[in-house]
Protein backbone atom coordinates (compact mmCIF):
# COMPACT_ATOMS: atom_id res chain seq x y z
CA UNK A 1 0.00 0.00 0.00
CA UNK A 2 2.40 2.60 -1.34
CA UNK A 3 -0.17 5.35 -1.55
CA UNK A 4 -0.69 5.25 2.21
CA UNK A 5 0.44 7.22 4.09
CA UNK A 6 0.81 10.08 1.63
CA UNK A 7 2.67 13.09 2.99
CA UNK A 8 3.45 16.20 0.96
CA UNK A 9 5.73 18.95 2.26
CA UNK A 10 5.82 22.47 0.88
CA UNK A 11 8.62 24.71 2.19
CA UNK A 12 9.82 28.06 0.93
CA UNK A 13 13.57 27.82 1.48
CA UNK A 14 16.33 25.31 0.83
CA UNK A 15 17.67 25.38 4.39
CA UNK A 16 14.16 24.63 5.70
CA UNK A 17 14.01 21.64 3.38
CA UNK A 18 17.44 20.25 4.24
CA UNK A 19 16.63 18.84 7.68
CA UNK A 20 13.21 17.52 6.66
CA UNK A 21 14.64 15.78 3.61
CA UNK A 22 17.34 14.20 5.67
CA UNK A 23 15.01 13.05 8.42
CA UNK A 24 12.53 11.43 6.05
CA UNK A 25 15.20 10.12 3.64
CA UNK A 26 14.13 12.11 0.63
CA UNK A 27 16.40 12.58 -2.33
CA UNK A 28 16.16 14.66 -5.48
CA UNK A 29 13.48 13.36 -7.80
CA UNK A 30 13.59 15.08 -11.21
CA UNK A 31 16.08 17.35 -12.89
CA UNK A 32 13.96 19.67 -15.00
CA UNK A 33 11.12 20.63 -12.75
CA UNK A 34 9.88 24.17 -12.12
CA UNK A 35 10.34 23.63 -8.39
CA UNK A 36 13.00 21.43 -6.78
CA UNK A 37 11.42 18.09 -5.96
CA UNK A 38 12.40 15.36 -3.50
CA UNK A 39 10.87 12.05 -2.44
CA UNK A 40 11.71 9.02 -0.35
CA UNK A 41 12.16 5.52 -1.74
CA UNK A 42 8.60 4.37 -1.04
CA UNK A 43 7.10 7.50 -2.60
CA UNK A 44 5.13 8.24 0.56
CA UNK A 45 6.97 11.47 1.39
CA UNK A 46 7.37 14.19 -1.26
CA UNK A 47 8.76 17.67 -0.77
CA UNK A 48 9.01 20.74 -2.92
CA UNK A 49 10.79 24.04 -2.39
CA UNK A 50 8.45 26.80 -3.49
CA UNK A 51 10.64 29.86 -3.03
CA UNK A 52 9.35 32.95 -1.25
CA UNK A 53 5.90 34.48 -1.75
CA UNK A 54 2.24 33.68 -2.13
CA UNK A 55 2.24 32.92 -5.84
CA UNK A 56 5.18 30.57 -5.54
CA UNK A 57 3.58 28.76 -2.62
CA UNK A 58 0.30 28.27 -4.51
CA UNK A 59 1.95 27.17 -7.75
CA UNK A 60 4.37 24.80 -6.02
CA UNK A 61 1.55 23.18 -4.05
CA UNK A 62 -0.43 22.54 -7.23
CA UNK A 63 2.70 21.28 -8.97
CA UNK A 64 3.47 18.87 -6.15
CA UNK A 65 -0.11 17.63 -6.17
CA UNK A 66 0.02 16.86 -9.87
CA UNK A 67 3.50 15.41 -10.14
CA UNK A 68 3.15 13.20 -7.07
CA UNK A 69 -0.43 12.15 -7.89
CA UNK A 70 -1.42 13.00 -4.34
CA UNK A 71 -4.50 10.97 -3.29
CA UNK A 72 -7.40 12.58 -1.39
CA UNK A 73 -6.14 11.25 1.97
CA UNK A 74 -2.85 13.12 1.63
CA UNK A 75 -1.41 15.00 4.60
CA UNK A 76 -0.21 18.44 3.49
CA UNK A 77 2.38 20.24 5.60
CA UNK A 78 3.83 23.70 5.24
CA UNK A 79 6.76 24.34 7.56
CA UNK A 80 8.66 27.56 7.52
CA UNK A 81 10.21 30.42 9.37
CA UNK A 82 8.15 33.44 10.41
CA UNK A 83 8.55 36.81 12.03
CA UNK A 84 7.10 37.66 15.42
CA UNK A 85 6.93 40.68 17.68
CA UNK A 86 6.58 38.77 20.92
CA UNK A 87 7.65 35.14 20.75
CA UNK A 88 11.16 33.89 21.45
CA UNK A 89 13.28 33.00 18.44
CA UNK A 90 13.05 29.28 17.72
CA UNK A 91 9.50 28.78 19.05
CA UNK A 92 7.34 26.45 17.00
CA UNK A 93 3.66 27.24 16.44
CA UNK A 94 0.72 25.43 14.94
CA UNK A 95 -1.18 28.04 12.96
CA UNK A 96 -4.94 28.19 13.52
CA UNK A 97 -5.86 31.44 11.79
CA UNK A 98 -4.26 32.90 8.68
CA UNK A 99 -5.17 36.32 7.37
CA UNK A 100 -4.23 37.44 3.92
CA UNK A 101 -2.87 40.96 4.33
CA UNK A 102 -3.97 42.20 0.92
CA UNK A 103 -7.61 41.00 1.06
CA UNK A 104 -7.99 40.77 4.84
CA UNK A 105 -9.71 37.40 4.33
CA UNK A 106 -9.03 34.72 6.92
CA UNK A 107 -8.88 30.93 6.91
CA UNK A 108 -8.90 28.76 10.01
CA UNK A 109 -6.76 25.60 9.88
CA UNK A 110 -7.68 22.96 12.47
CA UNK A 111 -5.93 19.68 11.74
CA UNK A 112 -7.17 16.54 13.50
CA UNK A 113 -4.02 16.41 15.58
CA UNK A 114 -3.64 15.03 19.07
CA UNK A 115 -0.02 16.14 19.50
CA UNK A 116 -0.11 19.36 21.48
CA UNK A 117 1.73 22.33 19.96
CA UNK A 118 1.40 25.99 21.01
CA UNK A 119 -0.89 27.84 18.63
CA UNK A 120 -0.80 31.20 16.94
CA UNK A 121 -2.37 33.35 14.24
CA UNK A 122 -0.44 34.21 11.12
CA UNK A 123 -0.54 37.17 8.75
CA UNK A 124 0.58 36.42 5.21
CA UNK A 125 2.21 39.48 3.67
CA UNK A 126 2.97 40.34 0.06
CA UNK A 127 6.43 41.65 0.92
CA UNK A 128 8.70 41.29 3.94
CA UNK A 129 7.41 43.44 6.81
CA UNK A 130 9.12 45.01 9.76
CA UNK A 131 6.15 46.14 11.82
CA UNK A 132 6.19 43.19 14.15
CA UNK A 133 3.02 42.74 16.21
CA UNK A 134 2.89 40.73 19.40
CA UNK A 135 -0.22 38.69 18.77
CA UNK A 136 0.49 37.11 15.41
CA UNK A 137 3.30 35.76 13.26
CA UNK A 138 4.22 36.91 9.74
CA UNK A 139 5.12 34.98 6.67
CA UNK A 140 4.68 35.22 2.91
CA UNK A 141 3.27 31.80 1.99
CA UNK A 142 0.89 30.38 4.63
CA UNK A 143 -2.41 31.73 3.32
CA UNK A 144 -1.94 30.60 -0.29
CA UNK A 145 -0.62 27.21 0.75
CA UNK A 146 -3.66 26.56 2.94
CA UNK A 147 -6.10 27.92 0.40
CA UNK A 148 -4.80 25.62 -2.33
CA UNK A 149 -4.21 22.56 -0.13
CA UNK A 150 -7.84 22.81 1.09
CA UNK A 151 -8.96 22.15 -2.44
CA UNK A 152 -6.79 19.04 -2.68
CA UNK A 153 -7.37 17.33 0.66
CA UNK A 154 -9.66 17.84 3.64
CA UNK A 155 -8.76 20.63 6.05
CA UNK A 156 -8.32 18.21 8.93
CA UNK A 157 -5.21 16.82 7.18
CA UNK A 158 -3.53 20.17 6.46
CA UNK A 159 -0.94 21.70 8.77
CA UNK A 160 0.78 25.04 8.77
CA UNK A 161 3.70 25.13 11.20
CA UNK A 162 5.87 28.20 11.73
CA UNK A 163 9.13 28.65 13.59
CA UNK A 164 9.98 32.14 14.82
CA UNK A 165 13.17 33.32 13.13
CA UNK A 166 13.12 37.11 13.31
CA UNK A 167 11.60 39.93 15.27
CA UNK A 168 12.18 43.51 16.34
CA UNK A 169 15.70 42.63 17.50
CA UNK A 170 16.71 40.31 14.65
CA UNK A 171 16.40 41.55 11.10
CA UNK A 172 15.12 38.86 8.72
CA UNK A 173 17.82 39.95 6.21
CA UNK A 174 20.51 38.89 8.63
CA UNK A 175 19.29 35.31 9.06
CA UNK A 176 21.83 32.89 7.69
CA UNK A 177 20.93 29.69 5.93
CA UNK A 178 22.69 27.72 8.68
CA UNK A 179 20.51 29.35 11.34
CA UNK A 180 17.35 28.42 9.49
CA UNK A 181 18.38 24.77 9.26
CA UNK A 182 19.21 24.79 12.95
CA UNK A 183 15.81 26.21 13.81
CA UNK A 184 14.07 23.44 11.88
CA UNK A 185 16.41 20.80 13.33
CA UNK A 186 15.36 21.79 16.83
CA UNK A 187 11.82 20.66 16.07
CA UNK A 188 12.40 17.67 13.87
CA UNK A 189 11.21 15.26 16.56
CA UNK A 190 7.93 17.14 16.87
CA UNK A 191 7.56 17.03 13.10
CA UNK A 192 8.04 13.26 13.16
CA UNK A 193 5.42 12.90 15.88
CA UNK A 194 3.03 15.09 13.94
CA UNK A 195 3.46 12.92 10.84
CA UNK A 196 2.83 9.70 12.82
CA UNK A 197 -0.19 11.21 14.51
CA UNK A 198 -1.82 12.50 11.34
CA UNK A 199 -0.95 9.31 9.46
CA UNK A 200 -3.27 7.38 11.76
CA UNK A 201 -6.04 9.91 11.05
CA UNK A 202 -5.43 9.79 7.33
CA UNK A 203 -5.75 5.98 7.51
CA UNK A 204 -9.44 6.54 8.21
CA UNK A 205 -9.66 8.48 4.97
CA UNK A 206 -7.62 5.90 3.12
CA UNK A 207 -9.89 3.06 4.29
CA UNK A 208 -12.92 5.09 3.37
CA UNK A 209 -11.85 6.33 -0.05
CA UNK A 210 -9.49 3.89 -1.71
CA UNK A 211 -10.92 1.52 -4.29
CA UNK A 212 -11.08 -1.94 -2.70
CA UNK A 213 -8.69 -4.54 -4.17
CA UNK A 214 -11.68 -6.84 -4.65
CA UNK A 215 -13.06 -4.40 -7.20
CA UNK A 216 -9.97 -4.63 -9.36
CA UNK A 217 -9.87 -8.41 -9.25
CA UNK A 218 -13.54 -8.77 -10.25
CA UNK A 219 -13.71 -6.00 -12.83
CA UNK A 220 -11.00 -7.67 -14.92
CA UNK A 221 -12.73 -11.06 -14.82
CA UNK A 222 -15.71 -10.17 -17.04
CA UNK A 223 -16.75 -7.34 -19.32
CA UNK A 224 -18.54 -4.74 -17.19
CA UNK A 225 -20.33 -1.73 -18.70
CA UNK A 226 -19.69 1.63 -17.03
CA UNK A 227 -23.01 1.37 -15.15
CA UNK A 228 -22.16 -2.14 -14.03
CA UNK A 229 -18.74 -0.99 -12.84
CA UNK A 230 -20.43 1.62 -10.73
CA UNK A 231 -22.85 -0.94 -9.31
CA UNK A 232 -19.98 -3.33 -8.61
CA UNK A 233 -18.10 -0.70 -6.66
CA UNK A 234 -21.15 0.03 -4.51
CA UNK A 235 -21.85 -3.65 -3.89
CA UNK A 236 -18.25 -4.34 -2.91
CA UNK A 237 -18.30 -1.50 -0.41
CA UNK A 238 -21.45 -2.94 1.17
CA UNK A 239 -20.00 -6.44 1.02
CA UNK A 240 -16.86 -5.36 2.82
CA UNK A 241 -18.95 -3.87 5.63
CA UNK A 242 -21.20 -6.91 6.05
CA UNK A 243 -18.78 -9.77 5.39
CA UNK A 244 -15.29 -8.50 6.20
CA UNK A 245 -14.01 -12.06 6.41
CA UNK A 246 -15.43 -13.26 3.06
CA UNK A 247 -13.76 -12.35 -0.24
CA UNK A 248 -16.27 -11.17 -2.86
CA UNK A 249 -14.27 -12.89 -5.56
CA UNK A 250 -15.01 -16.27 -3.93
CA UNK A 251 -18.73 -15.54 -4.12
CA UNK A 252 -18.77 -15.28 -7.89
CA UNK A 253 -16.98 -18.52 -8.80
CA UNK A 254 -20.16 -20.00 -10.20
CA UNK A 255 -20.97 -17.05 -12.43
CA UNK A 256 -20.21 -16.56 -16.13
CA UNK A 257 -20.67 -12.89 -16.77
CA UNK A 258 -20.90 -9.45 -15.20
CA UNK A 259 -24.63 -9.44 -14.50
CA UNK A 260 -24.50 -12.87 -12.87
CA UNK A 261 -21.63 -11.68 -10.68
CA UNK A 262 -23.58 -8.59 -9.62
CA UNK A 263 -26.64 -10.72 -8.93
CA UNK A 264 -24.66 -13.10 -6.73
CA UNK A 265 -23.23 -10.29 -4.63
CA UNK A 266 -26.61 -8.57 -4.38
CA UNK A 267 -28.28 -11.79 -3.19
CA UNK A 268 -25.75 -12.18 -0.39
CA UNK A 269 -26.21 -8.61 0.76
CA UNK A 270 -30.01 -8.74 0.53
CA UNK A 271 -30.30 -11.74 2.78
CA UNK A 272 -28.04 -10.36 5.48
CA UNK A 273 -29.55 -9.75 8.92
CA UNK A 274 -27.41 -7.88 11.43
CA UNK A 275 -26.65 -9.67 14.69
CA UNK A 276 -26.32 -6.63 16.91
CA UNK A 277 -25.02 -8.60 19.85
CA UNK A 278 -22.07 -9.79 17.73
CA UNK A 279 -21.23 -6.44 16.20
Amino acid sequence: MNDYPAIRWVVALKPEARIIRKNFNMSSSTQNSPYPLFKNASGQHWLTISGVGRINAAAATIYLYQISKAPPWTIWINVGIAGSGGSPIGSLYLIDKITDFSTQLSVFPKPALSVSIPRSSLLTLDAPGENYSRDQLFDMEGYSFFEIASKLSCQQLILVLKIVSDGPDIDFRSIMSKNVSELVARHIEVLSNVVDDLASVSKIEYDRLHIPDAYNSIVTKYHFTETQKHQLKKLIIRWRALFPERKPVDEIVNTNNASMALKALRAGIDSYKIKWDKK
Partner: protein
Amino acid sequence: MIDTIYVEKEIEEHPRTRSILTRFKGRREILVERYGEVFNKRSQNFRLQKRNPSLIIAKKHTGHILSTPQGFGIGGAKNFYFSHMINCVYDCRYCFLQGMYASANYVLFINYEDFISEINNLIFKHPEDKLTFFSGYDCDSLALEPITGFASFIVPSFKEYSSAEIEFRTKSTQIEFLLSIEPVSNCIIAYSLMPEIESRALDHKTPSIEKRINAIKRLAAHGWKIGLRFDPLIYGQDWEKRYQELFDTLFSSIPRGSIHSISYGSLRFPKEMFKAVHKLYPEEKLLSTIFPGDMDTVGYKTEIEDQMTRFCKNAFSRIFSEDIVFKCTTEATAP
Protein backbone atom coordinates in the same frame (compact mmCIF):
# COMPACT_ATOMS: atom_id res chain seq x y z
CA MET B 1 -12.69 18.42 25.60
CA ILE B 2 -13.35 21.57 23.61
CA ASP B 3 -9.97 23.23 23.01
CA THR B 4 -11.02 25.93 20.57
CA ILE B 5 -13.91 28.36 20.71
CA TYR B 6 -14.67 30.59 17.75
CA VAL B 7 -16.68 33.68 18.62
CA GLU B 8 -18.52 35.98 16.22
CA LYS B 9 -17.23 39.50 16.74
CA GLU B 10 -20.75 40.88 17.00
CA ILE B 11 -21.54 38.93 20.15
CA GLU B 12 -18.06 38.87 21.66
CA GLU B 13 -19.19 40.95 24.63
CA HIS B 14 -22.63 39.36 25.07
CA PRO B 15 -22.94 38.33 28.73
CA ARG B 16 -23.89 34.78 27.70
CA THR B 17 -20.75 34.54 25.53
CA ARG B 18 -18.57 35.77 28.37
CA SER B 19 -20.13 33.37 30.83
CA ILE B 20 -19.75 30.36 28.49
CA LEU B 21 -16.12 31.23 27.81
CA THR B 22 -15.31 31.15 31.50
CA ARG B 23 -16.47 27.52 31.62
CA PHE B 24 -13.65 26.34 29.36
CA LYS B 25 -10.26 26.69 30.96
CA GLY B 26 -7.20 26.63 28.72
CA ARG B 27 -9.19 26.88 25.49
CA ARG B 28 -8.13 29.08 22.61
CA GLU B 29 -10.56 31.82 21.62
CA ILE B 30 -10.57 32.92 17.98
CA LEU B 31 -12.69 35.76 16.66
CA VAL B 32 -14.58 35.34 13.38
CA GLU B 33 -16.87 37.66 11.44
CA ARG B 34 -19.59 35.08 10.77
CA TYR B 35 -19.81 31.46 11.86
CA GLY B 36 -19.92 30.32 8.22
CA GLU B 37 -16.18 31.03 8.06
CA VAL B 38 -15.52 27.97 10.21
CA PHE B 39 -18.66 25.94 9.73
CA ASN B 40 -19.77 23.80 6.82
CA LYS B 41 -16.88 24.67 4.55
CA ARG B 42 -16.76 22.27 1.61
CA SER B 43 -13.30 20.96 2.41
CA GLN B 44 -14.04 20.13 6.02
CA ASN B 45 -14.54 16.52 6.95
CA PHE B 46 -17.35 15.70 9.38
CA ARG B 47 -15.91 12.37 10.42
CA LEU B 48 -12.40 13.61 11.16
CA GLN B 49 -13.63 16.81 12.77
CA LYS B 50 -15.91 14.79 15.04
CA ARG B 51 -12.73 13.53 16.77
CA ASN B 52 -12.22 16.95 18.30
CA PRO B 53 -14.98 19.43 17.50
CA SER B 54 -14.70 23.10 18.32
CA LEU B 55 -17.44 25.30 19.68
CA ILE B 56 -18.66 28.27 17.69
CA ILE B 57 -20.63 30.95 19.52
CA ALA B 58 -22.82 32.81 17.06
CA LYS B 59 -25.94 34.87 16.59
CA LYS B 60 -28.87 33.52 14.59
CA HIS B 61 -30.25 36.21 12.33
CA THR B 62 -33.17 34.54 10.57
CA GLY B 63 -35.22 31.36 10.54
CA HIS B 64 -35.31 30.86 14.30
CA ILE B 65 -38.50 28.81 14.17
CA LEU B 66 -39.48 26.66 11.17
CA SER B 67 -42.42 24.43 10.24
CA THR B 68 -41.70 20.73 10.69
CA PRO B 69 -41.69 18.46 7.65
CA GLN B 70 -44.95 16.65 6.88
CA GLY B 71 -45.51 13.59 9.03
CA PHE B 72 -43.69 14.92 12.08
CA GLY B 73 -45.85 15.65 15.10
CA ILE B 74 -47.51 14.47 18.27
CA GLY B 75 -51.06 15.65 17.77
CA GLY B 76 -50.68 19.43 17.55
CA ALA B 77 -52.55 21.30 14.80
CA LYS B 78 -49.38 23.04 13.73
CA ASN B 79 -45.84 21.89 14.38
CA PHE B 80 -42.67 23.93 14.49
CA TYR B 81 -39.07 23.16 15.27
CA PHE B 82 -36.04 25.12 16.30
CA SER B 83 -32.48 24.53 17.37
CA HIS B 84 -30.36 26.75 19.55
CA MET B 85 -27.44 24.57 18.43
CA ILE B 86 -26.25 22.87 15.29
CA ASN B 87 -24.57 19.49 15.83
CA CYS B 88 -24.38 17.24 18.76
CA VAL B 89 -21.97 15.99 21.38
CA TYR B 90 -23.19 12.46 20.72
CA ASP B 91 -22.33 10.48 17.61
CA CYS B 92 -25.18 8.23 16.53
CA ARG B 93 -24.43 6.38 13.36
CA TYR B 94 -27.90 6.95 11.87
CA CYS B 95 -27.92 10.67 12.66
CA PHE B 96 -28.93 12.84 9.71
CA LEU B 97 -26.62 15.65 10.85
CA GLN B 98 -23.69 13.62 9.46
CA GLY B 99 -25.12 13.96 6.00
CA MET B 100 -26.45 17.44 6.42
CA TYR B 101 -23.35 19.39 7.41
CA ALA B 102 -19.74 19.12 6.29
CA SER B 103 -18.59 20.30 9.70
CA ALA B 104 -18.96 18.59 13.06
CA ASN B 105 -18.19 21.77 15.01
CA TYR B 106 -20.91 22.78 17.46
CA VAL B 107 -22.61 26.07 16.68
CA LEU B 108 -24.38 27.66 19.63
CA PHE B 109 -26.74 30.58 18.93
CA ILE B 110 -26.82 32.70 22.02
CA ASN B 111 -29.60 35.15 21.16
CA TYR B 112 -32.16 33.02 23.03
CA GLU B 113 -34.51 35.96 23.38
CA ASP B 114 -35.13 35.96 19.61
CA PHE B 115 -36.33 32.36 19.76
CA ILE B 116 -38.84 33.26 22.46
CA SER B 117 -40.07 36.32 20.63
CA GLU B 118 -40.71 34.30 17.45
CA ILE B 119 -42.54 31.66 19.46
CA ASN B 120 -44.64 34.50 20.87
CA ASN B 121 -45.40 35.82 17.40
CA LEU B 122 -46.51 32.40 16.18
CA ILE B 123 -48.77 31.80 19.16
CA PHE B 124 -50.28 35.25 18.65
CA LYS B 125 -50.77 34.55 14.93
CA HIS B 126 -52.61 31.24 15.54
CA PRO B 127 -54.83 31.90 18.54
CA GLU B 128 -57.25 29.07 17.69
CA ASP B 129 -54.72 26.33 17.07
CA LYS B 130 -52.80 24.03 19.34
CA LEU B 131 -49.16 24.55 18.42
CA THR B 132 -46.32 22.18 19.20
CA PHE B 133 -42.72 23.36 19.24
CA PHE B 134 -39.88 20.86 19.00
CA SER B 135 -36.60 21.93 20.51
CA GLY B 136 -33.37 20.36 19.33
CA TYR B 137 -33.96 19.28 15.76
CA ASP B 138 -30.33 19.89 14.75
CA CYS B 139 -28.86 18.84 18.10
CA ASP B 140 -29.71 17.05 21.31
CA SER B 141 -31.82 19.51 23.21
CA LEU B 142 -30.37 18.85 26.69
CA ALA B 143 -26.90 17.34 26.19
CA LEU B 144 -25.04 20.63 26.70
CA GLU B 145 -27.59 22.20 29.03
CA PRO B 146 -25.16 22.79 31.91
CA ILE B 147 -23.17 25.02 29.56
CA THR B 148 -25.84 26.61 27.39
CA GLY B 149 -28.68 27.02 29.90
CA PHE B 150 -31.06 27.20 26.94
CA ALA B 151 -33.78 24.93 28.31
CA SER B 152 -33.72 26.68 31.68
CA PHE B 153 -34.20 29.94 29.82
CA ILE B 154 -37.08 28.80 27.66
CA VAL B 155 -39.09 26.40 29.85
CA PRO B 156 -40.49 29.01 32.26
CA SER B 157 -41.97 31.03 29.36
CA PHE B 158 -44.18 28.11 28.45
CA LYS B 159 -46.06 28.42 31.71
CA GLU B 160 -47.88 31.32 30.06
CA TYR B 161 -48.59 29.65 26.73
CA SER B 162 -51.55 27.43 27.47
CA SER B 163 -52.35 26.82 23.79
CA ALA B 164 -48.89 25.56 22.98
CA GLU B 165 -46.66 22.64 23.90
CA ILE B 166 -42.91 22.32 23.76
CA GLU B 167 -40.96 19.10 23.42
CA PHE B 168 -37.31 18.67 24.36
CA ARG B 169 -36.04 15.61 22.55
CA THR B 170 -32.98 14.07 24.09
CA LYS B 171 -30.79 11.12 24.99
CA SER B 172 -29.18 13.08 27.76
CA THR B 173 -29.28 12.57 31.49
CA GLN B 174 -28.46 16.24 32.19
CA ILE B 175 -31.74 16.76 34.01
CA GLU B 176 -30.71 18.40 37.25
CA PHE B 177 -32.25 21.75 36.39
CA LEU B 178 -35.56 20.05 35.48
CA LEU B 179 -35.55 18.34 38.85
CA SER B 180 -34.87 21.63 40.57
CA ILE B 181 -37.98 23.43 39.26
CA GLU B 182 -41.72 22.86 39.29
CA PRO B 183 -42.77 20.80 36.24
CA VAL B 184 -44.43 22.80 33.48
CA SER B 185 -47.53 20.99 32.28
CA ASN B 186 -47.20 21.78 28.57
CA CYS B 187 -43.55 20.85 28.42
CA ILE B 188 -42.63 17.32 27.34
CA ILE B 189 -39.27 15.68 27.92
CA ALA B 190 -39.00 13.13 25.14
CA TYR B 191 -36.43 10.33 25.16
CA SER B 192 -35.12 8.57 22.07
CA LEU B 193 -34.81 4.87 22.79
CA MET B 194 -33.92 1.55 21.24
CA PRO B 195 -32.88 -1.79 22.75
CA GLU B 196 -29.64 -1.58 24.73
CA ILE B 197 -27.64 -3.85 22.39
CA GLU B 198 -28.55 -1.87 19.27
CA SER B 199 -27.92 1.36 21.13
CA ARG B 200 -24.46 0.24 22.20
CA ALA B 201 -23.60 -0.46 18.58
CA LEU B 202 -25.06 2.73 17.15
CA ASP B 203 -25.47 5.47 19.78
CA HIS B 204 -21.85 6.44 20.33
CA LYS B 205 -20.98 8.65 23.31
CA THR B 206 -24.59 8.68 24.58
CA PRO B 207 -25.82 7.61 28.01
CA SER B 208 -26.84 3.94 28.01
CA ILE B 209 -30.50 2.99 27.67
CA GLU B 210 -30.49 1.98 31.32
CA LYS B 211 -29.31 5.44 32.35
CA ARG B 212 -31.89 7.07 30.09
CA ILE B 213 -34.63 4.97 31.68
CA ASN B 214 -33.43 5.99 35.12
CA ALA B 215 -33.56 9.64 34.09
CA ILE B 216 -37.10 9.14 32.75
CA LYS B 217 -38.17 7.57 36.03
CA ARG B 218 -36.78 10.49 38.03
CA LEU B 219 -38.41 13.04 35.75
CA ALA B 220 -41.74 11.23 35.89
CA ALA B 221 -41.57 10.99 39.66
CA HIS B 222 -40.96 14.72 39.78
CA GLY B 223 -44.07 15.32 37.70
CA TRP B 224 -42.74 15.98 34.19
CA LYS B 225 -44.61 14.65 31.19
CA ILE B 226 -42.61 12.10 29.26
CA GLY B 227 -42.45 11.36 25.55
CA LEU B 228 -41.16 8.01 24.37
CA ARG B 229 -39.60 8.07 20.91
CA PHE B 230 -38.72 4.90 19.03
CA ASP B 231 -37.39 6.57 15.96
CA PRO B 232 -35.55 5.12 14.17
CA LEU B 233 -36.62 1.53 14.66
CA ILE B 234 -33.60 -0.70 14.13
CA TYR B 235 -33.91 -4.06 12.41
CA GLY B 236 -31.74 -7.11 12.94
CA GLN B 237 -31.75 -10.60 14.35
CA ASP B 238 -34.15 -10.98 17.31
CA TRP B 239 -35.41 -7.40 16.94
CA GLU B 240 -38.95 -8.32 18.07
CA LYS B 241 -37.76 -9.99 21.24
CA ARG B 242 -35.50 -7.10 22.16
CA TYR B 243 -38.03 -4.37 21.41
CA GLN B 244 -40.64 -6.26 23.42
CA GLU B 245 -38.23 -6.45 26.36
CA LEU B 246 -37.58 -2.74 26.09
CA PHE B 247 -41.31 -1.93 26.00
CA ASP B 248 -41.94 -4.21 28.98
CA THR B 249 -39.20 -2.53 31.00
CA LEU B 250 -40.43 0.94 30.15
CA PHE B 251 -44.12 0.34 30.64
CA SER B 252 -43.64 -1.44 33.91
CA SER B 253 -41.43 1.27 35.37
CA ILE B 254 -43.01 4.52 34.18
CA PRO B 255 -46.45 5.41 35.50
CA ARG B 256 -48.92 5.49 32.63
CA GLY B 257 -50.19 8.89 33.62
CA SER B 258 -46.71 10.37 33.08
CA ILE B 259 -46.55 9.29 29.47
CA HIS B 260 -47.62 12.16 27.27
CA SER B 261 -47.09 10.46 23.94
CA ILE B 262 -45.32 7.68 22.09
CA SER B 263 -43.99 7.94 18.58
CA TYR B 264 -42.19 5.54 16.33
CA GLY B 265 -40.77 5.60 12.85
CA SER B 266 -38.70 3.59 10.49
CA LEU B 267 -35.11 4.36 9.57
CA ARG B 268 -35.22 6.48 6.44
CA PHE B 269 -32.95 9.01 4.74
CA PRO B 270 -33.50 11.23 1.73
CA LYS B 271 -31.36 9.72 -1.04
CA GLU B 272 -28.76 12.48 -1.23
CA MET B 273 -28.34 12.58 2.52
CA PHE B 274 -27.87 8.83 2.64
CA LYS B 275 -25.17 9.03 -0.01
CA ALA B 276 -23.25 11.53 2.09
CA VAL B 277 -23.59 9.51 5.31
CA HIS B 278 -22.70 6.20 3.65
CA LYS B 279 -19.68 7.74 1.99
CA LEU B 280 -18.55 8.96 5.39
CA TYR B 281 -19.01 5.57 7.12
CA PRO B 282 -18.83 2.88 4.41
CA GLU B 283 -17.86 0.24 6.99
CA GLU B 284 -21.06 0.74 9.00
CA LYS B 285 -23.21 -2.39 8.79
CA LEU B 286 -26.47 -0.54 9.41
CA LEU B 287 -25.96 1.64 6.34
CA SER B 288 -25.17 -1.39 4.20
CA THR B 289 -28.51 -3.01 4.95
CA ILE B 290 -30.79 -0.22 3.78
CA PHE B 291 -31.65 0.47 0.16
CA PRO B 292 -33.15 3.07 -2.14
CA GLY B 293 -36.94 2.83 -2.17
CA ASP B 294 -39.49 4.23 -4.55
CA MET B 295 -39.97 7.60 -2.80
CA ASP B 296 -36.54 9.10 -3.30
CA THR B 297 -35.65 7.75 0.10
CA VAL B 298 -33.32 5.08 1.41
CA GLY B 299 -34.52 2.74 4.13
CA TYR B 300 -35.42 -0.81 5.02
CA LYS B 301 -37.35 -2.80 2.43
CA THR B 302 -41.09 -2.18 2.61
CA GLU B 303 -41.85 -5.60 4.08
CA ILE B 304 -39.40 -5.04 6.94
CA GLU B 305 -40.70 -1.54 7.52
CA ASP B 306 -44.29 -2.79 7.60
CA GLN B 307 -43.41 -5.65 9.91
CA MET B 308 -41.73 -3.33 12.39
CA THR B 309 -44.38 -0.62 12.40
CA ARG B 310 -47.16 -3.21 12.72
CA PHE B 311 -45.36 -4.76 15.66
CA CYS B 312 -45.05 -1.39 17.42
CA LYS B 313 -48.64 -0.43 16.71
CA ASN B 314 -49.89 -3.68 18.22
CA ALA B 315 -47.60 -3.47 21.22
CA PHE B 316 -48.72 0.08 22.01
CA SER B 317 -52.41 -0.42 21.29
CA ARG B 318 -52.58 -3.14 23.93
CA ILE B 319 -51.68 -0.57 26.59
CA PHE B 320 -52.30 2.98 25.37
CA SER B 321 -55.14 4.86 23.82
CA GLU B 322 -54.70 5.52 20.12
CA ASP B 323 -54.63 9.27 20.53
CA ILE B 324 -51.26 9.34 22.24
CA VAL B 325 -49.49 7.04 19.77
CA PHE B 326 -48.02 8.55 16.60
CA LYS B 327 -46.29 7.09 13.61
CA CYS B 328 -43.59 9.35 12.31
CA THR B 329 -43.24 9.33 8.55
CA THR B 330 -40.66 12.01 7.89
CA GLU B 331 -37.62 11.06 5.85
CA ALA B 332 -34.62 12.00 7.92
CA THR B 333 -34.19 10.49 11.31
CA ALA B 334 -34.58 13.19 13.90
CA PRO B 335 -32.38 13.16 17.01
